[in-house]
């Protein structure tokens, strides 16, 4: 994987994904190492993202690397009208690897074609966020002991949520059964359902958030965002329907774990946090190990 970029989860083969997950496991056992000593990593955040940026910076710091970059476009030369092309050309001569988050879709692919160093996509608009997908895969494998033949329930905004789309595409490599729970306006788009059909994978759609979750190995919750609704009344109707409460977990499987890309608003009631099946904060921590593994793989260090 040395000198490759990670723009879309599809850029990596199944073997390469497994290699990264195995490496992340090593970092979980021993997160502080000096593997990036003398390396400079650029973190270019053209839009703010607290979690992703801190997670990357934590990963780099724990490996002894140095960071250059900015946390939002206002404090970069973009505010002077510089093109992405020129910014990337310049930064790739200042650094050994570039982490980029940008609101424009396709910007990370474009950056990877301009840069002379590897590029990691930390989110390009509604398009891709492959490091999130890898940390989700890591969390699933860690809690279930396998990625094979699982039953995954995805809940909430399945129409616009890029994390659920990427995760669905990635998990389709391991014979997953999918259950989609969403309001009518936010259903999983046809193109993704067609993708599963072509692979011969089973999926089921539900509009009610009920007992059916007793079959789940993983419940992947997402935020239902107000701005996605054209009709505010529709939002008011559904906003409290897709809320996970502790009482709903009684009949769920012992191995079941709840994931959420965070930040959450009210879709997971805080009474769930104490339940051992709640896994979203550990999931966020796994993001550090996974990003350590990705950084080292692309730099050819591990």
């Amino acid at each position, binding site marked *: 994987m040395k000198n490759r970029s990670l723009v*879309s989860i599809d850029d990596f083969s199944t073997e390469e994904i497994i290699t990264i997950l195995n490496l992340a496991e090593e970092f979980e056992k021993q997160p502080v190492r000096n593997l990036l000593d003398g390396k400079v990593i650029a973190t270019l955040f053209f839009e703010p993202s607290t979690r992703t940026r801190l997670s990357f910076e934590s990963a780099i710091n724990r490996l002894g690397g140095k960071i250059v970059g900015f946390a939002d476009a206002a404090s970069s030369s973009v505010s002077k009208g510089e*093109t*992405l*092309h020129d910014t990337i050309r310049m930064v790739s001569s200042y650094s050994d690897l570039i982490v980029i988050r940008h*609101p*424009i*879709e*396709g*910007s990370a*692919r*474009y950056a990877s074609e301009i840069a002379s160093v590897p590029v990691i996509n930390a989110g*390009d*608009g*509604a*398009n*891709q966020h492959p490091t999130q997908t890898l940390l989700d895969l890591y969390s699933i494998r860690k809690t279930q002991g396998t990625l094979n033949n699982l039953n995954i329930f995805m809940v909430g905004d399945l129409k616009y949520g890029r994390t659920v789309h990427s995760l669905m595409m990635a998990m389709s490599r391991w014979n997953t059964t999918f259950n989609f729970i969403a309001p009518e306006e936010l259903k999983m788009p046809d*193109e993704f359902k067609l993708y599963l059909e072509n692979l011969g994978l089973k999926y089921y759609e539900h509009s009610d958030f009920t007992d059916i979750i007793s079959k789940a190995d993983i419940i992947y919750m997402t935020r239902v965002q107000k701005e996605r609704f054209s009709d505010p009344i529709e939002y008011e109707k559904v906003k409290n329907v897709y809320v996970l409460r502790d009482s709903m977990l009684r009949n769920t499987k012992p191995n079941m774990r709840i994931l959420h890309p965070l930040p959450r608003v009210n879709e997971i009631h805080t009474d769930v946090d104490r339940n051992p099946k709640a896994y979203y904060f550990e999931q966020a921590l796994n993001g550090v190990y996974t990003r350590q593994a990705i950084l080292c793989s692309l730099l050819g260090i591990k």
Partner: protein
Amino acid sequence: MSVSAIENGTVIDHVPAKNLFKVIQILGLDHIDSQITFGTNLESKKLGRKAIIKISGKFFEDDDINRIALVAPEAKLNIIRDYEVVEKKVVEVPDNITGIAKCVNPKCITNFEPVTTRFRVVSKKNVALKCHYCEKITTQENLQII
């Protein structure tokens, strides 16, 4: 249609009537000196309404002609020499399209910076293009030629 036959040149038949002017634009026919005749809204069993273009003294390279496949996938070409059809060609939708179409996604990087558009053709029949950059699909209905 009472249009005289051409001595030498190219006849492009089976162009969907609604895309006639797109074909003219893609081939740059509005900028050449050749005599050109076209007819449109002609009856066609296959297309409903078709258009036909006759270009005198002009021959195209395959790469040029395949550019129109996006808007006229069933177009047929007759190459005329000395009033005779010496060759017939069909257009072929290529597997990849570079620099002809515009990405429909207003949030795509290709609509912000001077990036040459690149697409993988995911469906040739009802043309659907997947953007190499933003990964969104541009379909026939919202296809815009650059």
